[in-house]
């Protein structure tokens, strides 16, 4: 039985002149885990918003038999409120007609926490949480809302491998409870490990729906992008050059050299978040450090400004004379960056209307253009499709060849192993271990260190 059936829907956005969806169809069976895959800007998120009912389509038929709950890619949590308040919005238990029964809410949420084996202090403010924890709060929120159809937009992108594994288990247990799950993901593991079927979208159109079991894992990525993916390999033979930049983290001095990529990783609360804050402050006072924030929405861009404004925001001086901006110069420059980095958007479109991946491309393009000596990249490929992620890896590789130093902060152990010359692993706010010989580095080893296990 189909719990969601979508027939020939179209959606046009006039703000940035894009046809997000055209003649898209999708059928979801009750109780399945259905993955939706495709490039950035393929219209996946728009489709999910239409299913959830927060966006309306221009034409076509939609039939949904159940309550939907959605965890969007960019969290909708309120930073200044605590976890409990965020979870109960929309489903507040009420006593004496209009008073919010926080005690009851507390019990109900704790039941969910115990059931799924999560641990959270419900009185913590959202602003004190890491990305992974925020994700968890969002998930608990949709579970709490008692939705039948759960929609996840890139849920594992921000999670460490351990957390992602836990999350996938959570989805499977939700499936056991007869929930229907729709998940957007770029991670092949999400699709191969848990999905029953997956649907491929390209440029707002339906391409095909595939039963996951019927295809090989290696085939999935080809199905997803339509082209053969070439994995970038980093040339480790380039020897690091002279010292570029150093900082002290918890009594340990980390020095970055020319042609060197240093990976820093860890799980959830390891202190990566705080380290990013420190490094951000350093980068602000130093023109030779380019910084790409992990939370690109709140730190990387101003959502209401035009894309061209976002692209020149780092160096407005270059585009101004006597305090006046030279818009013609800005337009040419922005057009150049947009084509060069394949950003799907026009120079005048509102930055906030870009898809997550394209947003990240704009932020990275802006920093790369500045040509600093040192780059601080924080979760650079979070929420980005395989092809674009590979483009970013290629870009990092060419930076390395140009004798630049790169500091890569990422929760993604595989990414760190693939790119780095050296890896620092954080645990509870300190460096628990350093891997200097990259030939021994495996995700399992990093996983072990990240959980605080040093020797067996």
């Amino acid at each position, binding site marked *: 039985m189909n719990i969601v059936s979508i027939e020939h829907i179209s959606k046009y956005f006039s703000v940035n002149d894009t046809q997000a969806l055209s003649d898209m169809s999708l059928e979801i069976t009750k109780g399945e885990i259905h993955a939706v895959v495709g490039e950035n800007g393929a219209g996946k998120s728009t489709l999910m918003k239409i299913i959830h009912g927060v966006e309306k389509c221009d034409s076509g038929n939609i039939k949904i038999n159940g309550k939907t709950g959605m965890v969007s890619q960019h969290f*909708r949590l309120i930073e200044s*409120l605590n976890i409990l308040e965020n979870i109960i*919005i*929309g489903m507040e238990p009420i006593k004496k007609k209009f*008073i*919010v029964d926080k005690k009851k809410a507390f019990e109900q949420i704790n039941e969910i926490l115990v059931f799924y084996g999560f641990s959270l202090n419900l009185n913590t403010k959202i602003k004190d949480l890491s990305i992974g924890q925020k994700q968890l709060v969002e998930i608990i929120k949709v579970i709490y809302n008692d939705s039948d159809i759960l929609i996840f937009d890139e849920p594992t992108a921000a999670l460490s491998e351990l957390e992602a594994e836990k999350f996938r288990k959570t989805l499977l247990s939700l499936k056991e409870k007869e929930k229907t799950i729709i998940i957007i993901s770029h991670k092949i593991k999400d699709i191969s490990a848990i999905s029953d079927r997956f649907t491929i979208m390209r440029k707002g159109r339906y391409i095909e729906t595939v039963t996951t079991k019927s295809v090989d894992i290696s085939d999935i990525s080809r199905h997803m992008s339509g082209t053969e993916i070439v994995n970038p390999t980093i040339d480790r033979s380039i020897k690091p050059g002279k010292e570029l930049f150093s900082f002290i983290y918890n009594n340990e001095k980390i020095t970055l050299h020319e042609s060197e990529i240093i990976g820093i990783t860890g799980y959830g609360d390891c202190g990566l978040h705080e380290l990013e804050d420190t490094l951000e402050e350093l980068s602000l006072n130093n023109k030779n450090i380019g910084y790409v924030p992990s939370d690109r929405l709140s730190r990387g861009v101003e959502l209401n400004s035009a894309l061209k404004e976002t692209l020149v925001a780092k160096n407005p001086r270059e585009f101004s004379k006597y305090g006046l901006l030279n818009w013609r110069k800005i337009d040419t420059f922005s057009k150049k960056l947009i084509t060069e980095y394949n950003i799907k958007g026009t120079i005048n479109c509102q930055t906030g209307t870009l898809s997550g991946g394209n947003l990240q491309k704009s932020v990275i393009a802006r920093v790369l253009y500045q040509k600093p000596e040192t780059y601080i990249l924080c979760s650079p490929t979070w929420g980005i499709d395989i092809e674009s992620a590979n483009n970013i890896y290629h870009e990092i590789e060419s930076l390395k060849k140009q004798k630049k130093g790169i500091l890569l902060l990422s929760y993604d152990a595989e990414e760190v192993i693939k790119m780095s010359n050296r890896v620092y692993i954080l645990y509870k706010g300190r460096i628990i271990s350093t891997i200097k010989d990259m030939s021994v580095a495996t995700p399992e080893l990093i996983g072990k260190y990240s959980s605080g296990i040093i020797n067996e």
Partner: protein
Amino acid sequence: MNFFEIITPFLLASIGGLYTEYSGTTNVALEGYITISAFIFITITKLTNSILLGFCLTIGIILIISFIHSSLTIKLKANPIITGLAVNMGFYGLISALSYKIFKTKGVISLDYPNIETMPIKILAILLPFITLFIISKTRYGLRLRVRGLSKKSLIYSRINADYYRLTAMMISAILSGLGGIFLGMELRSFIPNIGSGRGWISLVIIYLGRKNPIGILIGCGIFSVAQIFSNYSQNHNVPSEFILALPYFLTLIALIISMRKKTINNR
């Protein structure tokens, strides 16, 4: 006028304005609502000879006006400052036009009434900060109102009508300021042009000085009322009243500097 008579309109208007602040906007028409309510109340009471009728009809009319004002602002996504200022100016025009039409005067309109009992309004005004604190922190309406001000998308994704909360907040602020205007009319037993004499604007200032917190606002209103009493008193002596009227601003400035220093030290 004694302390309670002075603080009442301040409290009503600033706590009313606080609701719109929670919903993420500002109602700059507080002053206008005070003035027009006083006018409507005096007019209806004079024409019908019934305070009760005057009171109820005024509240009803303000409800309708504020509903139109806020729903237009929200639906048309207009700038709330501009619509608020337009409402303010429109009210003044309306008052002098109607005043001339009905009473053939643009000046003072007096009621032939002995004392009007205003105690219930005073009590309500004093209790209002505490009631508001309760509503904001304990009720569902309060939670959603705050969320509306912090993130509209949060409400949309939970599929709650986000506009409802801003609309009602605007109406609450209009009604409470209106009550302040009615109170002034009752106290003076007449309508005089510029009866609000800047109370609406000062209330907006108090909201910010009170850090958008009901108790902070209560304290702010208290300081301003005391200053008002002093300035009335000083007119009989040789102290410039402007100096005393400036005192609350000066005091809050000092208070802000001190509290900010504390905050930065804590952050370090």
